[in-house]
């Protein structure tokens, strides 16, 4: 057994490995599948029987090379049509980190898929073809990633082998991209010259780019500092479920189960329960493995309070001097995801925000965003599939919200069609993330 696998096994069991979720965006031509294939292959995550199967299918089709996209295109329709329909999740681990890749297809349903993939991502990988430079699609993907508040953007300038590993080409792309990104809110922007096909700067540092002083992609992803991305300031604990054992030995137990959305909670902290507005103290923070000294995101815990107050699912626990806004009129950006009908003014939907369901009516559409030019089209009457817009909602009961860019957990919601029960929109509370 090699040292790497021993290290990996040890790191996973002793708890020193953390988790990084990233989304990849790009189309067939810019080598996204090859890059993912390279990461999985070089990290020994592609299994031999999977590779055999992909090699056989590629040969049957008369391809000159092994088509690594076959690894991720799992549905019959995808293989038949040679397209990627849906977000695919892939997994690999090194002794430092486990990675979850949300692989979002670039062409069909790109907005819906990219929004889905980016909603939980710590980082987004944007692929740029070194020969083509920054194109409309690169801008679109970057805009969507920043709209969803992805804190780290890694621009992989791919196919460097086809431009003779030219520093000048790389620097020009970096300049163009940085200029465009200055209009968006990008806390961390990194550029890496790579060749996914040849393996330059993917896992190993390339000898072909002596002018490049940064890390190869994998070490960059291993070292990305994501701890400070989480909101550890504003305590928000949406009550998910009330635990009251119907057993003799724990009859008086009453605990509020939930996942810490943000902030750090400790026993003894003064808290307020919303919407009741009643203050009390955290008596204990319980888990099945015993009480804990503190709870922070994304821990799933059970909170016991010093006073008996009436709290149920959908309520929110916060600090008395730091509460979310209780709003019935919501100003939001939405991405529309339903092909059967557009969003129009006057329509009613079910809305889910944290653990609370309510009903919402569309009061107004302020504008639609052109995701390519970032231009705001005002005076529109509907938002269609894969479009983004700013709307005003009236909700049947107050929601306890924060602006999405400050708190993605309490700033996000979904809209659900009440007749089909389909999820039709992703919503983000507050305005656009860019300054202009």
């Amino acid at each position, binding site marked *: 057994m090699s040292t790497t696998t021993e290290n990996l096994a040890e790191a996973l*069991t002793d708890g020193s490995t953390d988790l990084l979720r990233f989304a990849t965006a790009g189309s067939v031509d810019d080598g996204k599948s090859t890059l993912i294939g390279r990461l999985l292959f070089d990290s020994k995550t592609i*299994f031999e029987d999977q590779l055999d199967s992909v090699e056989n299918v590629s040969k049957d089709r008369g391809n000159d090379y092994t088509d690594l996209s076959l690894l991720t295109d799992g*549905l019959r329709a995808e293989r038949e049509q040679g397209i990627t329909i849906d977000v695919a999740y892939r997994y690999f681990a090194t002794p430092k980190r486990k990675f*979850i890749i949300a692989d979002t297809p670039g062409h069909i349903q790109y907005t819906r898929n990219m929004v889905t993939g980016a909603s*939980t991502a710590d980082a987004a990988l944007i692929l740029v073809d070194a020969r083509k430079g920054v194109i409309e699609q690169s801008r679109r993907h970057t805009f969507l990633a920043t709209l969803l508040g992805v804190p780290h953007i890694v621009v992989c300038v791919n196919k460097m082998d086809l431009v003779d590993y030219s520093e000048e080409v790389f620097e020009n792309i970096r300049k163009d991209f940085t200029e465009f990104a200055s209009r968006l809110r990008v806390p961390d922007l990194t550029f890496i010259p790579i060749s996914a096909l040849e393996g330059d700067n993917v896992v190993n540092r390339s000898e072909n780019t002596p002018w490049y002083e940064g890390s190869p992609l994998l070490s960059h992803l291993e070292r990305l500092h994501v*701890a400070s991305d989480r909101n550890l300031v504003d305590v928000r604990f949406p009550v998910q479920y009330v635990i009251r054992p119907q*057993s003799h030995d724990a009859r008086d137990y009453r605990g509020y189960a939930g996942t810490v959305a943000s902030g750090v909670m400790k026993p003894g902290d003064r808290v307020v329960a919303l919407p009741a507005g009643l203050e009390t103290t955290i008596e204990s923070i319980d888990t099945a493995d015993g009480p804990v000294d503190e709870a922070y995101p994304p821990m799933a815990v059970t909170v016991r309070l010093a006073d008996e107050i009436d709290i149920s699912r959908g309520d929110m626990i916060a600090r008395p001097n730091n509460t979310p806004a209780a709003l019935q009129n919501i100003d939001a950006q939405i991405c529309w995801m339903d092909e059967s009908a557009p969003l129009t003014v006057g329509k009613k939907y079910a809305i889910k925000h944290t653990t609370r369901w309510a009903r919402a009516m569309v009061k107004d559409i302020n504008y639609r965003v052109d995701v390519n030019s970032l231009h705001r089209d005002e005076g529109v009457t509907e938002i269609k599939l894969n479009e983004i817009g700013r709307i005003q909602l009236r909700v049947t009961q107050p929601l306890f919200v924060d602006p999405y860019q400050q708190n993605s957990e309490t700033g996000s919601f979904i809209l659900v069609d009440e007749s089909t029960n389909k999820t039709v929109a992703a919503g983000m509370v507050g305005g656009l993330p860019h300054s202009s």
Partner: protein
Amino acid sequence: MTSHVLSQLRSLEAESIHIIREVVAEMERPVLLFSGGKDSIVMLHMAAKAFAPARIPFPIMHVDTGLNFQSVLDTRDRWVERLGIQLVVASVQDAIDRGLVKEEPNGSRNRIQTPVLLEAVEKHGFDAAFGGGRRDEEKARAKERVFSFRDDFGQWDPKNQRPEIWNLYNGRVHQGESIRVFPLSNWTELDIWSYIAAENMDIPDLYLAQEREVVNRDGMLFAVNEFTPLKEGETSEIRSVRYRTVGDANLTAAVESQASTLNAIVEETAAVRITERGATRGDDKVSEAAMEDRKREGYF
């Protein structure tokens, strides 16, 4: 000073507990599908954690193919006893006897368990069923949602899945429709073993390597027992083997291994270069789209 960063195993555990609680809070009548295999044990273990100190507020259901390893049944019964939960058994043998399903010529009861499962779900009025499926297992599973909508025939339509954004799950269904819920979606085989080792969980001893009498059929090692007796002309040998999956006893093969402890299994899994289904499941080697087809029919 603490860094306030959860390890990846604890992050996965927290995500799964969140999912399990969400289902119980929103659905009328959930059930947990329990096979006695490692994934369903991990799922059950986390369900117990999600509601502690209360009991798990839903029953578990075992779709019993009648082709179980005894050690799997024993493990199931120990878990039921320890957690004080209700066990529903849906019997494939009984369904064959009643004429609901017919035995397939190759002896696999993998496919015919689907109607039995769907019948039991309908009979008991379950509107949500937890399954131990993982996205790393198979390509069709890689695109499955955590909350996977099924129509009133129990069918999965991969082109008509609900978008799943953030951790805002939508379990709304009409009468007769249901959802399958996969709390282990983001776990890999290696995560499962790391977690079982970290929590020192009770699993069937078949997963641990020991010397067993085996027969080699087309490169797959089958233990010689009542389900897979020696055929004429075959010779058996004694090898140190273990099981990576525990499906039907007549079709699940063992792999050569010296891993006789949980930690040894974690190390072996970190090093292994072939998928668990590819290595040991005769029933999955049917076609490129075998899993997708079964899932469309209502399989997990």
